[in-house]
């Protein structure tokens, strides 16, 4: 019966293309959206993950950067440095604002870096310097290219002009980028010279970042210390919480489109074969045999649709970065499992109506068709 389903499916090429293509597009919509959001999630923590720190120390109860503000007094740097297990510290200033390039305004994490910062700065430079001097900014290469900005050009950050002194790679996502200026400039623009936002901590070799973070919280008053991994997870969670409803709605739309396309094509395919199913029934096929054929047809269509949808999504995820777009498509195994599960549900539901149609089919119809 599986062979019959296969042959029925492939005999009508146009119907197969519509069926498989419709399902593929619907599943691709779900997969791509998932991949975009996974990419955004991953890129949104790109600074935290590549900062080189083992621990992020922030103002008490501040657990992420996105839409958050942290302020720590200068004295914290000295105290944390004295905590056993701490090897190096780098204070950074942070604010979420725009980098203005001509008429374009690009949302960015503005990071203020101290002179000679050993870590916390850009991790991959495509051209120019890697540490901003006074009046200089290091911005994302892709964003700069998109806006036609080159090394030596001027951009506006927090209302002041900065000369582009370096272009960094992998510091942009679909929603924002990271721009680096000197901590002195940052303090001048903000009018606050005695505080900073986060303290990045490197632990000594062989020391547990988790234990050290606990020790920092015990030793230093009014701070929250988290390992970089925990801080990154918190950041992702905030983004995820903000985008969950959108993803759910888009997934639902994709699911319903896939279901509608599949249900319609399986239904019409079964309707077109109704006389043949009647013949099989007359010859002695049981309803179970015919249900299997219909279900197999739906499963094969959905499986091919899933494969095509996945192939297109992977192709897009390979092509998009080459186009210079600040978007990353990341197909996760969780997304594959989810879309695979949805595909099975689509196949199952779309086969229900045709199965009901077949169950009521009178085998004696073979003698009445003429």
């Amino acid at each position: 019966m599986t062979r019959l389903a296969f042959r029925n499916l492939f005999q009508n090429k146009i119907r197969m293309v519509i069926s498989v293509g419709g399902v593929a597009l619907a599943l691709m919509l779900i997969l791509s959206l998932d991949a975009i959001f996974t990419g955004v999630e991953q890129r949104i923590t790109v600074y935290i993950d590549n900062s080189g720190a083992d621990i992020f120390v922030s103002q008490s109860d501040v657990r992420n950067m996105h839409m958050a503000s942290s302020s720590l007094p200068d004295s914290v740097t000295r105290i944390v440095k004295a905590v056993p297990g701490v090897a190096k510290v780098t204070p950074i200033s942070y604010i979420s604002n725009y980098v203005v390039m001509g008429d374009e305004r690009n949302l960015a994490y503005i990071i203020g870096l101290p002179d000679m910062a050993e870590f916390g700065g850009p991790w991959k430079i495509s051209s120019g310097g890697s540490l901003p001097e006074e009046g200089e900014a290091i911005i994302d290469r892709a964003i700069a290219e998109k806006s036609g900005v080159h090394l030596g050009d001027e951009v506006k950050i927090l209302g002041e002009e900065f000369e582009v002194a370096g272009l960094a790679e992998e510091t942009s996502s679909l929603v924002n980028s990271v721009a680096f200026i000197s901590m002195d400039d940052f303090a001048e623009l903000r009018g606050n010279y005695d505080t900073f936002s986060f303290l990045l901590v490197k632990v000594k070799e062989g020391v547990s970042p988790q234990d050290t973070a606990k020790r920092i919280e015990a030793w230093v008053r009014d701070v929250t210390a988290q390992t970089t991994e925990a801080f990154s997870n918190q950041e992702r969670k905030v983004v995820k919480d903000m985008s969950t409803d959108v993803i759910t709605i888009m997934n639902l739309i994709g699911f319903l489109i896939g279901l509608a396309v599949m249900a319609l094509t399986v239904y019409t395919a079964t309707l077109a074969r109704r006389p043949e199913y009647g013949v099989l029934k007359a010859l002695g096929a049981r309803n179970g045999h015919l249900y299997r054929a219909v279900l197999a047809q739906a499963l094969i269509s959905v499986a091919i649709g899933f494969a095509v949808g996945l192939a297109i999504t992977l192709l897009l995820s390979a092509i998009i970065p080459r186009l210079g777009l600040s978007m990353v498509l990341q197909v996760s195994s969780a997304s594959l499992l989810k879309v695979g599960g949805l595909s099975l549900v689509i196949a199952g539901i779309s086969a229900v109506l045709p199965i009901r149609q077949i169950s009521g089919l009178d085998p004696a119809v073979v003698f009445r068709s003429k």
Partner: protein
Amino acid sequence: MKKDLADVPGRLAPTSTLEVDHVTKRYGSGDTEVAAVREVSLSVAAGEIVLIMGPSGSGKTTLLSMLGALLKPSAGEIRLNGEVISAMRENHLPDIRLRKFGFIFQDFNLLSALSALENVAIVAELAGIKRSAARKAAAILLTNLGLGDRLNFLPEKLSGGEKQRVAIARALINDPALILADEPTANLDSKIGHEIMRLLRQIAKKQGRSVVIVSHDQRIKDIADRVLWLEDGQFKDMVTMATDPVCGMTVELDNEIKIEWEGQLFYFCAKGCRDEFFSHPEQFSSRSVQPVKG
């Protein structure tokens, strides 16, 4: 449990008898009740070919459907080799149809997406035969029927006669005791029709299977052991029948629509045929009006 199919072609079916005992089929109820078949009794011996003829709407299809366990009679009993199939529960009937009956249809009714070989093998597979064995048996049957070079052809690539031979192979693959054929020559030209008739005769005489044919085709009378006339849901004596010289239909001798022309009586199925006869009597009067032999 799947089993291997023994040598299929040429197998002799077990001695079988189909018995139809006072079978009636009614549709509707009360004032709208219609009896499509009324108190019909019939017995078909193993190896016998029975041809059932009759006008459209006479109940032939209903009777054939009941004989093939596709339809349950309202009254009466149908037995195959002593087993009462008319009283069987619905869920037992697919097995009976699969193993005891072979069906041959006017429109061939082959599955368009499957090759000739697969069309035959699928019925054996439904009966629990392993795929490889089913394909092997189907290939032998089709080859014996002269379709050895057409095994992998789709039905659309086959001629009418070839399609009907595939249908015959499909009807035989599960070694049934009874073959039920519905207008098996209707869509075939004269030569191919004769070939199909010869095959049906072989199936009955060499393999010992009972064959019941429903048809309007007068040529099939040549191979039938018995010809039965079904009209208004009942069998009637065919000695009292004649052939309409215009349309060729078999009509009753006591038909009111008759005329005498140059000393000979002509019987018609309808006034239309009689009027057409009158318009060109010389064209039709030479046609035989001999009563049909029963």
